[in-house]
């Protein structure tokens, strides 16, 4: 059966609530017929009338509430309407939730769902990528699924995880990515594992979330037009990093480009490059590169927006530069 990335998320929420009475969802506009700004909870109120709960526009309090419920033994899932608004909850996430296990020894099993990433016309406050600023704080697991199967299994695993998980879901993929999916047969990769989405021996492309698909398209162009075979690594989990898979791929290809629609400064791409240069320097045949969003807030105009984010052509050019070194 072909389902969308968003339907996979909805299925994961429903199945998790079916399997575990401790799970509930708290967020803005998620209850009743409406089912959320993006419809991730559509229909779930009928099945679980008391466990899909509308909150006031209070990201800080929603998040603190989740910590309290988790400490009391439940498995809360908080939905922010857009990842951008998680900045309002920054204090609860990084000071209260991230630190509680280290401080007290009591773990905090909760999931914060952050609809992130760009869609044209979203502008500066509806397209942000929050994974870098949340990954900086020890205590948070940060994941960013790129496939329908991952959307399902990673959300189930995140809810099952005994530590707080920041679940970054890509808004463009919600409706635009569909795939045949049978939860009983599909491959269930582990939460903290990176995946090799395409094998190749010339250059490694490392990415996560929506940008994985652009890397795969660029890899096809490079193979077809330039006979350059890229290995595409999907990080899936950006905190912690699957260092083994990253370094094994760099050892195989000797060349690497990290691609992200996040900003460059102090980001996940910088962290991956730091890992590669300090732990895998001996494998490198060319300087490792990163290709990020433009280092300005996210523009509103579709033309500006298209130039803000790496696309297949720019990814292919970055790989060719690396190959030419």
């Amino acid at each position: 059966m072909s389902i969308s990335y968003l339907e996979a998320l909805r299925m994961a929420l429903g199945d998790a609530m079916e399997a575990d009475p401790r799970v509930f969802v708290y967020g803005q506009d998620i209850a009743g017929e409406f089912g959320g700004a993006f419809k991730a909870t559509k229909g779930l109120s009928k099945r679980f009338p008391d466990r899909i709960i509308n909150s006031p526009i209070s990201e800080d309090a929603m998040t603190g509430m989740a910590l309290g419920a988790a400490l009391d033994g439940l498995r809360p899932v908080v939905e922010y309407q857009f990842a951008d608004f998680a900045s309002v909850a920054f204090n609860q996430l990084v000071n209260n939730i991230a630190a509680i296990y280290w401080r007290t020894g009591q773990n905090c099993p909760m999931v914060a769902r952050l609809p992130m990433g760009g869609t044209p016309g979203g502008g500066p406050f509806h397209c942000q990528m929050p994974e870098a600023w949340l990954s900086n704080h020890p205590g948070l697991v940060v994941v960013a699924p790129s496939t329908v199967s991952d959307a399902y299994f990673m959300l189930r695993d995140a809810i099952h995880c005994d530590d707080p998980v920041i679940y970054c879901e890509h808004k463009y993929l919600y409706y635009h990515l569909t795939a045949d999916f049978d939860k009983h047969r599909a491959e269930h990769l582990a939460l903290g594992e990176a995946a090799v989405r395409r094998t190749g021996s010339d250059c490694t492309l490392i990415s996560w979330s929506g940008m994985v698909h652009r890397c795969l398209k660029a890899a096809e162009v490079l193979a077809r037009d330039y006979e350059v075979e890229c290995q595409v690594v999907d990080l899936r989990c950006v905190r912690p990093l699957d260092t083994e898979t990253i370094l094994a791929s760099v050892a195989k290809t000797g060349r690497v480009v990290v691609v992200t629609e996040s900003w460059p400064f102090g980001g996940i791409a910088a962290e991956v490059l730091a890992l590669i240069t300090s732990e895998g320097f001996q494998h490198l045949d060319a300087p490792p590169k990163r290709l990020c969003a433009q280092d300005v807030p996210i523009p509103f105009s579709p033309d500006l927006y298209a130039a803000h984010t790496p696309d297949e052509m720019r990814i292919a050019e970055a790989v060719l530069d690396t190959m030419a070194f």
Partner: protein
Amino acid sequence: MNDVERLAHLRWMILARVLDDRMSSFYKQGMIPGSVFTGRGQEAFSAAGGMLLRPGDVFAPMIRDLAGRLAFGEPIIDGIRTCLGKRTGPMRGRDGNIHRGLPAKGLLPMVSHLGAMVSVTCGVLLSRRLKGQATGTDLAIGMTSIGDGGMATGALHEGLNLAAVEKLPLVMMVTNNQLSYSTLNDRSFACKHLVDRALGYGMRGHTCDGTDADACMATMADAVARARRGEGPQLVVATLLRLAGHGGHDDALYVPADLKSRFGDCLPLSERTLKVQGVATEESIRALWDEVRQEVEVVVEQVLKERAPDPDEEDWCAYSVRDLKKVRS
């Protein structure tokens, strides 16, 4: 409240004062890193809150709530170990002074960010409701605390609004001690009285004189009873004066003399009332202080023998899950 309970209230106040003073002296001796933060002058109100709680309730105390913590059941030794940064304390040297708690026993450890614990307390109460435990007219309640300074934070506003929307059995203790560190009320809020905020949130407001132990207890008892009956969140504002610096490092020379002249100290005031009414005598009160000092000193002696945390014994891991690859739903 009967006289036995009034004397118990006094005892918690004295215990908090003695323990606070002991920690202040350790700080002056250079034995406590960071600073010490005491509840001097706020013991009557804080202890009243703690005394009205019972097992199953949840309490998120703030910076000046030693009296409430002790009355809720925090062992004396926990505070001493935490202030001295011992491995044996509840925070194991990883966190210090007032940032301590025992979440499994309903004592939530505060973060320094004011107002942040209101919604966390609400989360425990919402959890109880979702688990079907919040039924009847004798509910387990949540209690937390804030000052006149913290009343200006966004987190406090979001938390109180959420408590009201969810009609949670929360008792919000507000101690207007006139000082947000060095800043006076006129730079912290512009409403006539902080209790007026209750109306805006849709909750019942209460006020009391924070230097009058009996008034604190009566007011808090009413608020707690209403919360237990299911009347929703209660906002209680006590007015008093902070009788110490913000922390041990602060001489508080900025406190205006006229402000000092307007407020008394709840502890001697309570002792005087109990003596005048024949509930206690000079001798019985002196004996109480001696007994409490001895109780604290025994624990202090034990903690001083305990060793500091060893960096080599730390596991330096902020995650309870050590291998994410093994997490599988």
